[in-house]
């Protein structure tokens, strides 16, 4: 099991039966592959689809049916299509239970940076700035450290923000960390890591949940 798969499988546990969920582009989209058949979950796509289904077979590809990552998809039974304005009304209005998104940096107060690196070409924020304020719960999934081995969980984001104080939980290949009013709280440590490993690869001081040694 690689890191992406490990993270996606852990993120699946955030998805509760009956939830309406928006999965961000990239690794978050993978979470869909692991959602238990015991849960009835409806996936929302901000380009105007409630009820994303599996990828189509080669013969059933419909060029008019894509997800927000512009991949060809299908729709489940009971799905609906609507305009982008309606889609973001749904998001902004708090009707989506959970958004699972990627990140470049997360700060201890829940600030999120995931759309722009100054000096590099700006691609645009897409729907991320709306999702972080609209979804009832925002869970970030990402590698715990960057390619240089430096923390991505910081006291303060160095990159331009996507949203201030918007993250509820961070799931990485090493740990699960909650954003609380008191600060970041380490609630799970992945196999192969210790509490000390997590603290050493995380800039802010972590509150250690009871029961974690």
């Amino acid at each position: 099991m690689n890191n992406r798969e490990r993270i996606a499988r852990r993120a699946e546990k955030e998805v509760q039966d009956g939830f309406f969920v928006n999965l961000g582009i990239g690794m978050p989209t993978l979470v869909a592959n692991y959602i238990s058949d015991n849960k009835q979950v409806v996936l929302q796509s901000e380009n105007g689809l409630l009820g994303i289904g599996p990828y189509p077979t080669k013969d059933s590809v419909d060029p008019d049916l894509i997800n927000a990552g512009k991949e060809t998809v299908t729709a489940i039974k009971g799905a609906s299509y609507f305009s982008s304005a309606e889609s973001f009304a749904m998001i902004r209005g708090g009707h989506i239970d959970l958004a699972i998104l990627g990140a470049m940096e997360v700060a201890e107060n829940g600030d999120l940076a995931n759309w722009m690196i100054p000096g590099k070409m700006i691609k645009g924020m897409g729907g991320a700035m709306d999702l972080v304020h609209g979804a009832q719960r925002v869970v970030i999934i990402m590698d715990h450290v960057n390619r240089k081995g430096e923390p991505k969980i910081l006291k303060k984001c160095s990159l331009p923000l996507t949203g201030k104080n918007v993250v509820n939980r961070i799931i990485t290949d090493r740990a699960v960390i909650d954003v609380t009013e008191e600060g970041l709280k380490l609630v799970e440590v992945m196999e192969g890591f210790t509490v000390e490993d997590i603290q050493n690869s995380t800039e802010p001081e972590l509150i250690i949940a009871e029961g974690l040694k």
Partner: protein
Amino acid sequence: MKSIHTSFVDAVKDIHDGATIMVGGFGLVGIPENLIKALLETGVKDLTIISNNCGVDDWGLGLLLQNKQVKKMISSYVGENKEFERQVLSGELEVELVPQGSLSEKIRAGGAGIPGFYTPAGVGTPIAEGKETKVFNGKEYLLEEGLVADFSLVRAAKGDKMGNLIYNKTAQNFNPMIATAGKVTIAEVEELYEIGELPPDQIHTPSVYVQRLIVGKQEKRIERLTVSE
């Protein structure tokens, strides 16, 4: 009741240099393919284009970029296009990035006569620079203004001769709002129906918003073909 065109160039020929146009679609899905290509032919210049994306290098709005007909893009995501990057870095192209939900609502607001509304999207980010904010119930919101355009180009699956439109699946996306926000709205439809053939309960864009109609055969290029085994 509406002008029904047979030439795409005729349908767009009064789009003038420096015009602001809105173009429907998300990625390459739901774009008015032939109306865009007609703008290549008319060669109109210095366009300000409001559209969620900017096509790819060789399709959709990317064609107008290649041909240097675009002065400014107002979009939420433009990351699929190398020529876009080159023109922005060289200063040839101006870009204004707007959160996707704000963009779709700004267009709806423009079409609905709402000059401004408040949204949480972008508070505390570079997007908020220079924008008014206001606190409602202890939470900060940004004032976003409505957007309108000289011309709106949309694509629908079905249209009737009165101008009523029905979209297909996720090819709906920005098209319904864009149809409302153009002084002149030009609809490229896959199939044109007689008046009365479309069910009144299922109209996505009522006829009042559409001034011109034209039937267009679509290539419907796929940006990211993804299939299950």
